[in-house]
C-alpha cells in the first residue's frame, strides 16, 4: 500500500516542497528512508516508531520504505517527522488517504508523540501556497504571519490522527495574547550629552549611511548604537516578509503576529566565525548575522578584533545587499541589506584626550591598519565619541527622545526617496551634481579640503551624500549649503593613522 504526503524543507531562506512517499509491503520487517536524508532526517524513523507506540497506534510489522522526493535534493532537519508518520498511517490504513488531500505537514515528533517546532516554518509554509499546513502549536506564530488562516495546529500526533479521522475538530489556535510582546526600542532620551554622536545616529538612520563610532571604552558607543533601530521606520511589507523568512529559517523567535516589522538589531561578538556572520553550513545554508540584520542594523563592537577574513567576507554583501553562498551541491542568495554600525577604540589602550594614549606608535598603526583599507572606506560617517562631560551626566534633562528624532528621520527619508528613488547613501556619483547640488561656498570648501589632501576622491563623494542627508534633515531640499558640508566633515573624524605627513 502506498501513500504520499506533502511537506517541505528549508534551504537558505527558501522553502522547498518535498513529497513524502511511504510504501508498506510484506517482507522482512524494516524501516528505510531514501532520498538523500541527512543525519537528523534519517534518525526520524526512531522518533516516528517511538511516537507511534506511545500514542497507541499500531506499528506495521512489514517492510516500510520512505522516499523523500525529489530524491536528488539533500534534505535536512527533523521537520519531515510528522509527514512521515502521517504517510505511514495512511499507507497502513489507519487514516483515510483521501483526507490528506489539501494538507501539508511540518513538525518534529517527540518520543511521547508530541509535536515540536522546527526552524524555517515561515519559508516552508510559504513554499506550499495552495494547501493548509499542519504545524506544532509552538510554530503557530511563525506560520501565521505568512499563511493567514491556512494553517492548522496540533499538540500531539493523537490530535492530528483524530482530526484527520474526523473524530475531533482541529485544536483552536491560541488566542488572548494579542499584545505586542517585543520590548519597546531603547530611547535616545537616556543618552546625556554627546551632541555630535546623536547627530551621527540621526544622519545615519536618515540617509542609510554606515556609521563608525570611534572612542575610548566607557564612552557609550554601544549605548548609542543600540538606539539606532528605534530611529529607523517600520519595515516595508516586502522587507518585512524577507526578514521574517530569514528569522524563521535561522530559528530566531519571531515577534507576536509572526512578522518582523521593526528594524532588527544584531550585535555578533567579535569572535564570530565567517559562517556565523555571512551564513553557510553544509546542508541547509543557514542565514548568518548579516542576513538576520536585513532591513535593520548590524552592530560590530570592537571592529578591529574581528578576523580580517570575516570582515573581508562582508564587502560583497555590503555592496549588493545580498549574500550569494555557493557550495559544491547547491547555492543560495540570502537577503542582506543592512545598516552597518561599528565601534572601535582609536588604539589598543583605548585612547582618550590627546596625550592619554599609552601605546607606542607601531602598535597604534598596526591596530588601525586592521581596520583600514576597503572596509573603512565604506563608512560614510566616522564619529568621535568622547567620555561624556561631568556637567552633562549630572544635568537633569536628557536629550531629545527617540520619538522626536525618528519623526525627523522619517521625513528626511521620504524626501530622499522621492528625490532619488533610493536612500541618500546609495546615490551614484554621477548623479550627485543633479541630486545634491552644492552652494558655491560649499563647493569652495570641498575644493580646499581636496587640495589640502584632507579628503580623498572617494571621501569626497561620501561627504557630499552625507551633506545631502543633513540638508534634508534641516529642510533644505534643494541646495546643499556650506554649513551642511561642514557638519558632514565634522562627522568624519580623521584617524591619526591617516594624518601622517609626507616629507616635503
Amino acid at each position, binding site marked *: 500500500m502506498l501513500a504520499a504526503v506533502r511537506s517541505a524543507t528549508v534551504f537558505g531562506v527558501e522553502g522547498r516542497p518535498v513529497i513524502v512517499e511511504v510504501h508498506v509491503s510484506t517482507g522482512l520487517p524494516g524501516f528505510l528512508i531514501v532520498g538523500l536524508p541527512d543525519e537528523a532526517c534519517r534518525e526520524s524513523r526512531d522518533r516516528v516508531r517511538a511516537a507511534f507506540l506511545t500514542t497507541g497506534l499500531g506499528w506495521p510489522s512489514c517492510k516500510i520504505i520512505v522516499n523523500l522526493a525529489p530524491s536528488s535534493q539533500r534534505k535536512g532537519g527533523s521537520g519531515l517527522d510528522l509527514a512521515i508518520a502521517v504517510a505511514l498511517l495512511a499507507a497502513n490504513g489507519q487514516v483515510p488517504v483521501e483526507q490528506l488531500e489539501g494538507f501539508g505537514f511540518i513538525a518534529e515528533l517527540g518520543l511521547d508523540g508530541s509535536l515540536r517546532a522546527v526552524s524555517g516554518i515561515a519559508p516552508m509554509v510559504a513554499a506550499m501556497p495552495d494547501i493548509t499546513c499542519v504545524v506544532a502549536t509552538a510554530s503557530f506564530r511563525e506560520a501565521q504571519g505568512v499563511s493567514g488562516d491556512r494553517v492548522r495546529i496540533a499538540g500531539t500526533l493523537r490530535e492530528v490522527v483524530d482530526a484527520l479521522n474526523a473524530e475531533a475538530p482541529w485544536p483552536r489556535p491560541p488566542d488572548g495574547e494579542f499584545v505586542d510582546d517585543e520590548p519597546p526600542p531603547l530611547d535616545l532620551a537616556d543618552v546625556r550629552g554627546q551632541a555630535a554622536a546623536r547627530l551621527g545616529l540621526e544622519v545615519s538612520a536618515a540617509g542609510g549611511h554606515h556609521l563608525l563610532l570611534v*572612542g575610548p571604552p566607557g564612552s557609550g558607543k554601544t549605548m548609542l548604537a543600540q538606539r539606532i533601530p528605534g530611529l529607523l521606520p517600520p519595515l516595508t511589507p516586502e522587507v518585512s516578509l524577507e526578514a521574517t523568512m530569514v528569522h524563521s529559517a535561522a530559528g530566531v523567535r519571531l515577534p507576536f503576529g509572526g512578522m518582523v516589522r521593526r528594524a532588527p538589531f544584531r550585535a555578533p561578538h567579535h569572535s564570530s566565525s565567517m559562517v556565523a556572520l555571512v551564513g553557510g553550513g553544509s546542508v541547509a545554508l543557514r542565514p548568518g548575522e548579516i542576513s538576520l540584520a536585513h532591513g535593520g542594523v548590524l552592530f560590530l563592537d570592537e571592529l578591529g578584533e574581528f578576523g580580517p577574513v570575516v570582515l573581508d567576507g562582508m564587502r560583497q554583501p555590503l555592496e549588493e545587499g545580498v549574500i550569494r553562498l555557493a557550495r559544491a551541491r547547491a547555492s543560495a542568495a540570502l537577503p542582506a541589506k543592512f545598516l552597518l554600525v561599528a565601534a572601535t577604540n582609536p588604539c589598543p589602550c583605548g585612547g582618550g584626550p590627546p*596625550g592619554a594614549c599609552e601605546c607606542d606608535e607601531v602598535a597604534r598603526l598596526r591596530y588601525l591598519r586592521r581596520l583600514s583599507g576597503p572596509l573603512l572606506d565604506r563608512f560614510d560617517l566616522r564619529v*568621535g565619541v568622547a567620555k561624556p562631560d561631568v556637567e*552633562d551626566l549630572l544635568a537633569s534633562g536628557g536629550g531629545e527622545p527617540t520619538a522626536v528624532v525618528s519623526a525627523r528621520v522619517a521625513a528626511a527619508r521620504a524626501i530622499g526617496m522621492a528625490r532619488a528613488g533610493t536612500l541618500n547613501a546609495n546615490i551614484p556619483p554621477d548623479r550627485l551634481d543633479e541630486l545634491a547640488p552644492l552652494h558655491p561656498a560649499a563647493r569652495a570648501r570641498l575644493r580646499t579640503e581636496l587640495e589640502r589632501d584632507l579628503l580623498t576622491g572617494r571621501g569626497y563623494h561620501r561627504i557630499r551624500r552625507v551633506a545631502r542627508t543633513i540638508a534634508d534633515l534641516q529642510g533644505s531640499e534643494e541646495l546643499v549649503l556650506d554649513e551642511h558640508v561642514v557638519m558632514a566633515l565634522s562627522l568624519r*573624524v580623521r584617524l591619526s593613522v591617516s594624518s601622517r605627513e609626507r616629507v*616635503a
Partner: protein
Amino acid sequence: MNVHRLSALLRHHEPEEAWAVVLGQQPAFGLIAQVLAANAPVRASWQRCATERPPARIWQQCLDLGLQVLVMGHPRYPAGLLDDRLPPPVLFARGDLALLEGRRVGIVGTRNATVGGRATARLLGNGLAAAGVHVLSGLARGIDGYAHRGVLAAHIDQPDNDRAGRPIGIVASGHDVIYPREHADLWAAVGERGLLLSESPPGTPPEPHRFPLRNRIVAALSEVVVVVESRERGGSLITASEAIDRSVPVMAVPGPVDRRSAAGTNRLICDGAAPVLGVDDVLIALSYQNGRSAVMAADLRPRPRGGDLAIYRVIAEDARTIDGVALALGLSLVDAAMGLARLEASGWVAQADGWFERTGSPLR
C-alpha cells in the same frame, strides 16, 4: 663588539694590529690581554664576529653605499667627539661632515607625540634651520622625525637661502637598515641635504641597546639639546642626562601638568632645564641673539575674530571635541563646527581622532 672594549682595543693597537689580535694571531697588550686571558667566551665571540663579517666585505658595502669611514684619529673625525668620555671608535657617515663645524642644536622627544608636540617639533626645526642652525636628531618616529621635517621644509620654503640650517641624523642601525621603515624618505632626504651618521657598520640591525648609545652621540655633538615632549621615562631623557653629563645645556618645552606627554619635560624644567617657549629661546641659548627679536616673524594666518577667537581660547586652554567646544561656549553644534572649520582652514587648530588641539605658535 662592545663599544668600551673596542675603544680600549683601538687605544692600544693600530687598526690592522687590532684585527690580528681579535683573530688571535697576535698577542694583546694591557687591559685587553687581561680580558682575553680571563674570558674565553669573549675571545670566542670576537673571533666569530671577525670571521662572519670580514672587513673587506664591510668596506665594499661602505663603498657601495657611498659612506665615509672615520676611525678615531682620522683627520675628518669629528673634533667634538675626540675628548668625549666614550667617543665612538668608528663612524660611518653619509653627507657633508663640514656641518659639524656649524651651530648645532639637538631636538629630541617621544615617539608617541601628540599633534601639538609634533607641530612644536616641526616649528622649532623650521625656525632653527631658517636662522642657519643645524638640527641634530635621531630620526625616530614622533618628535625626531617632525623636527627634521621642519628643517627640510625650511629648504623648500626658502630655496635661495643657502645659509639655512641642515638636518643631521644620528642613527642606531647600519646605513642600509632603515628604521623605522616609514622614514625611508626622511633618511634619504637627510643624507642628501645634510648628514647621516652611524656608529654601526652597514647591515647592523636596530637592536634595542644601540639606541641609548646613539643618544650619547646626539648629546655629544649638540651645543644645546631641546626635549620637546617626553613622558616620565624615555629615550629622550637618556639623551638629556647624557647631555647634562657633558655640560651641554638642556632645554625643554613645558606642557600642562596633568598631561602625561609633558611629564618628562616638566620634570626637566623643574630640575633646572631652561624652558623653551619658542625658537627665540633656543637662539638666545646659543648666544645668537641677546633678546627676543622685537619684530616677530610675521604670522601669516588670519587672526581669528569674534566667536572664532572665543573657540580658539577654549581650545588653547585644553584639547576639546566638537561637543566640548559647543558645551563650553553654549553654541549649537553647527556654529561650533563652522568656527572650528574656519580655525582649521587658517591653521590655528588641528584635529585627530575627533579632538581639536591648538597648533602652530600661540596667538599673542
